[in-house]
């Protein structure tokens, strides 16, 4: 696997999985505004995943759908931060804040890449992420003095640079759910 494919798959796997996790709030977020925000952010993250999978797929001679849904769980390279199934709002917002911070550093590095396709995609993603960052900023400010939020940040921070080579039990469950359509109907398209 080339270095370029490795970078693209880490980015795409992170965005696909965080998008899937964020979408778990659709319909049950604490306010209507956040229901809309999380659904929209999730949709966008999955759009970023798709674009990155497509670049990787062109190099590997496969398709974005096959990379997203036809790999075995151990082949994914996402960060453990995005794999966690978080059921409370303080942790969910803490993950959004930590994820945006880490993703920003990665996207900024890619914008400076010599590879024109990578740099162009990174610039596009960066512009869209500006809205996700504003959302995280708004919540970080609102919850700044809330002990549960500070505790969630401290608890989740070590996961940011966690081991990408092994999968958590929570990821296995997510993988089952995420790939169920393709496994029951190989090659399914939407």
């Amino acid at each position, binding site marked *: 696997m080339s270095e370029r494919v490795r970078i693209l798959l880490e980015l795409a796997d992170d965005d696909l999985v965080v998008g899937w996790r964020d979408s778990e709030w659709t319909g049950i977020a604490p306010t209507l505004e956040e229901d809309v925000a999380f659904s929209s952010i999730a949709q966008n993250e999955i759009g970023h995943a798709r674009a990155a999978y497509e670049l990787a797929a062109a190099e590997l001679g496969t398709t974005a759908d096959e990379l997203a849904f036809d790999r075995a769980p151990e082949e994914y390279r996402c960060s453990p931060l995005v794999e966690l199934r978080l059921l409370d709002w303080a942790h969910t917002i803490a993950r959004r804040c930590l994820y945006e911070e880490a993703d920003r550093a990665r996207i900024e590095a890619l914008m400076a890449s010599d590879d024109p396709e990578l740099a162009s995609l990174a610039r*596009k993603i960066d512009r869209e992420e500006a809205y996700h960052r504003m959302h995280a900023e708004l919540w970080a400010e609102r919850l700044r003095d809330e002990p549960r939020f500070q505790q969630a940040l401290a608890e989740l921070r070590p996961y940011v640079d966690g081991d990408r080579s092994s999968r958590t039990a929570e990821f296995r469950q997510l993988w089952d759910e995420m790939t169920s359509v393709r496994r029951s109907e190989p090659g399914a398209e939407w």
Partner: protein
Amino acid sequence: MVSAGEVWTALGEIADPEIPVISLVELGVVRDVDVEGDRVSVTLTPTFLGCPALDAMRRALEAKIVSLGGEPVVTVERGDAWTSDRITPAGREKLRAAGFAPPAPRDTSAPRLVQLQANRCRCPYCGSSETRLENLFGPTPCRSIRYCESCRQPFEQFKTL
């Protein structure tokens, strides 16, 4: 054989699937048209990468080219070609008339929260600038929700990208 100009005119008749008052050409997502014999190549640039209407747009472009007797090759360009500044002046007017505030022009730096919160974007219904940001996110990735304090009407604003 169809000319590139005829293709542009025909594509200008395709309504955006989510905001049908504006055409795909006015939205600025049709980047390039190239005609070689029967083959008509079109480059489509998504507004947001997560735009769920992208496949519908691609199919609409293909169907239109087929109706002109061409053989369509639609390529989706996912780089940073599209910005909200690509919406044409006519397109912006149509958005406003349909109750969507058009995007503010793109600055050199990314939009910031304080700007969006302070931005006195005009209400597309009554023209008042007494409006506030209600939610950064809206029904599709490209829209935010604002509220007009003067006519008490919530409205959508196309995001600056």
